[in-house]
């Protein structure tokens, strides 16, 4: 049985109902329908065993004169929709709203996921292939989500996402990542990250270092997400003035061409419309280091001639949308891996970053690395322990002196901002920074 819901929504009837509350010319009203399923395979020593969460619900939003009212409820039915419309409008209707039909498909039979059950052994084999062994508690999750948006101005098709998350607890710390698929290659990639962390876990942190370092694709993904993605969200930019003012400002080095392109994300999470129903676009955030088009949702784009909607995302139906990145891409440069390392001799190779933070007002930026390697003989050498980079965001982005020529898909992980937890993805090559300070 197909699990795709919302394909038989009476979108015309819903639009008619919404039109009754969006009765002023500049009003915007939409209905957001959501279904999600989460399957979890906990660690072997944890009960209860297999875990399933299934939920559906809807939200109705009215935007008027810079104010937004959102009413959200769990469950989907004509009665729930009518009640939600009434709450968003904050008034009893003069005449009863017509009740559109929904035709929501029911949940299919008991959820199964053989790929979840098979992956722990595949990971175990991949770790053993590196000739190491260590205690590991693995939690695996499969996330599925379907959304459809019907508004007074436009209506999207059904968007669906499926991806996996893994969280590994080890005696020396926790490692988490997102995976578009649970393949043998994914098991090998995860095993490589765990084994690298294991081999470096007793290494001493590096001495304070001022000079060159090379970031691996996973670390670059976190850097781009924090320093470019969050920095160029319209609501973040608005803290310092009008978001349009950022366009044309040089934020980073000429090596940086950064895009947000949800339509080129890994296939299972690829989107054609955002969580407000607007078509997504290949949005150039930085072209040769200069800001071109910030991340923008419909509310910010509404009163602007240059800001474009299409990057509105919702954590879930109970939260209003906000401008966020989905899938960041760093345009490849011309440097081979050997070139990147050749100009960073004696510096640090930092393959992974576990977290980053950008202070939106002051521009202070920090990035933490769980481990790294000294660059010796133009390649990663002796391991080093934890370190961090702390500087002004523009200083970090201007310190990029070379970008690798081989982009790689790198799930950047979960983004948590303003109470919204969202999966974010990236495709990026390695890059070299010069003149940065890395501290233990």
């Amino acid at each position: 049985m197909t699990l795709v819901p919302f394909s038989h929504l009476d979108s015309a009837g819903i639009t008619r109902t919404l039109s009754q509350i969006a009765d002023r010319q500049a009003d915007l009203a939409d209905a957001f329908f959501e279904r999600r399923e989460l399957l979890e395979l906990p660690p072997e020593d944890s009960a209860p065993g297999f875990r399933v969460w299934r939920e559906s619900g809807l939200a109705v939003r009215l935007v008027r004169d810079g104010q937004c009212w959102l009413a959200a409820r769990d469950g989907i039915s004509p009665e729930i929709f009518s009640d939600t419309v009434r709450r968003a409008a904050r008034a009893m209707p003069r005449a009863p709203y017509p009740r559109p039909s929904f035709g929501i498909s029911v949940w299919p039979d008991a959820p199964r996921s053989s790929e979840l059950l098979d992956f722990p052994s595949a990971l175990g084999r991949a770790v053993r292939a590196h000739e190491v062994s260590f205690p590991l508690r693995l939690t695996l999750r499969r996330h599925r989500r379907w959304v459809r948006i019907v508004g007074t101005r436009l209506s999207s098709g059904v968007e669906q996402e499926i991806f996996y998350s893994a969280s590994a607890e080890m005696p020396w710390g926790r490692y988490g990542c997102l995976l578009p698929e649970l393949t043998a290659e994914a098991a090998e990639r995860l095993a490589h990250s765990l084994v690298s962390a294991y081999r470096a876990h007793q290494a001493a942190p590096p001495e304070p270092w001022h000079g060159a370092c090379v970031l691996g694709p996973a670390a670059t993904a976190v850097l781009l997400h924090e320093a470019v993605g969050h920095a160029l969200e319209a609501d973040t930019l608005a803290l310092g003035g009008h978001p349009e003012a950022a366009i044309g400002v040089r934020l980073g080095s000429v090596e940086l061409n950064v895009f947000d392109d949800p339509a080129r994300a890994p296939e299972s999470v690829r989107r054609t419309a955002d969580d407000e129903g607007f078509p997504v676009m290949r949005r150039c955030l930085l072209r040769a280091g200069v800001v071109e088009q910030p991340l923008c949702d419909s509310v910010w784009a509404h009163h602007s001639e240059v800001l474009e909607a299409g990057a509105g995302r919702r954590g879930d139906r109970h939260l209003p949308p906000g401008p966020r990145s989905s899938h960041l891409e760093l345009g490849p440069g011309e440097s081979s891996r050997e070139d990147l390392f050749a100009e960073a001799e004696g510096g640090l190779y930092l393959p992974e970053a576990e977290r980053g933070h950008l202070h939106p007002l002051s521009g202070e930026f920090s990035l933490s690395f769980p481990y790294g390697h000294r660059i010796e003989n133009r390649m990663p050498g002796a391991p080093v322990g934890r370190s961090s980079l702390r500087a002004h965001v523009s200083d970090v982005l201007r310190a990029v002196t070379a970008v690798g020529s081989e982009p790689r898909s790198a799930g950047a992980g979960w983004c948590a901002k303003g109470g919204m937890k969202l999966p974010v993805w990236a495709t990026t090559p390695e890059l070299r920074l010069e003149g940065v300070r890395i501290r233990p």
Partner: protein
Amino acid sequence: MKIDASLHAVLEKLSGEDWEEVEVYHKRGRSRTVRFAPQGTVTTFSQEEGWAVRAGDRRRSFFYAAAGEPRSDVAWPEADGRGVRLASAKPVPPWTPPSDLDVPLIGESETRGLFEALARQLAEELPGARLILGELADGSSESQLVSSREVEASVRQRTALLYLEAAGPGRGSRSIALRLAERDARRFNPRTLGRRLADLLTVTEKGTTPVRDRGEFVLAPAVVVSLLSALSDLWLGPGAEEKTAHLTDRRGKIASPAFTLIDDGRLSGGVLEAPVDGEGQPTREQVLVEEGIFRQPLLAWWQSTSDPSRVSGCCRRPGWRDLPRPGATHLYLRPETTASVASLIENLSRGYYLIATEGAPQVAVADNRFALPVCGFAIEGGRPTGSITGAWLVGSVSGLLNGIVTTARDLSFLPVSSGMVGSPSLLIKGLELRQRP
């Protein structure tokens, strides 16, 4: 207490399918959240409802949760190879629900009024300072639980969470944030909060970082709460006794006589006050450390099967999507005196009054050390001589616990990820301020 028939229907259905252990949980709630920012206001009204089942036997089990009302016509997931055991029913001491559970949710215009008054107060206290984000979420909920072990429980709760972020007058100035919780949103006082934001902004704008210094410290509740939360491994769970062993002196003490630590799930007036926990087990006051002597860790029913007297209802279950997990509800350091904070500061000959944290603590219990980024005031002769920021309060964990000289009377609770944690202001010796952790 009347449990909805739908819960019993699910219980009977699963029991009829020969599952030995079955628990059905249902929660519904509604909330109004007003997010106030200079670029516009967002008002959200949410109604949430969901339910969850834990079922199994000694060899296998499953967990199923879904939005809406409990239903018995569900295709349950396949049980996996781990057994599950549920809590048996226990007598619950009488409990009177607080009267403010029935107070209506705060209105949209009331909330706007609160933020506008707060922004005015802030601008009066510190001209040019601005409130860049205010968010007030006011909600009420009702949860019910039944199980094959004859547990039947129903709990109503009421929580208001306030988040404030403000920036100073200077361009590129740092912002500061406050996160607070009350049972009734109308208890938030805009004048007090405006002054508090202004104090924090002044300190971070004008403060300097001392190179390295020792002295006496008065730690405000926010600073102590951060440390108590970070040290939770010392008080929670069966492994706690082992972790505190190396901190215990020859007299059996881990802390100064001014240190009495309590967890109380039915704390009168507490934001999370309830007669039972997330598994329907009765809550109570549990003394964990008494006048410096470690009495016992906080233990759930399955963590001390040989000695039930050490157990309290401490499995927290924030929502229907969550599995119950042991944790503190209202963990607090008991005030030992009726002294005011002002009197503690007046008696500082040379030291610091640390009013807030500037980031997460770094704690290594096994290595007996901690570091916490802090800000506050330098004090000489009982008077402030300047403000400090970007400093780290560092020391040993045992030095922290044993260095407490006395407490003030200003017990305050703050919301942390694991519940509510409270403390009065403390006078403490033996710690150090540094520029790096």
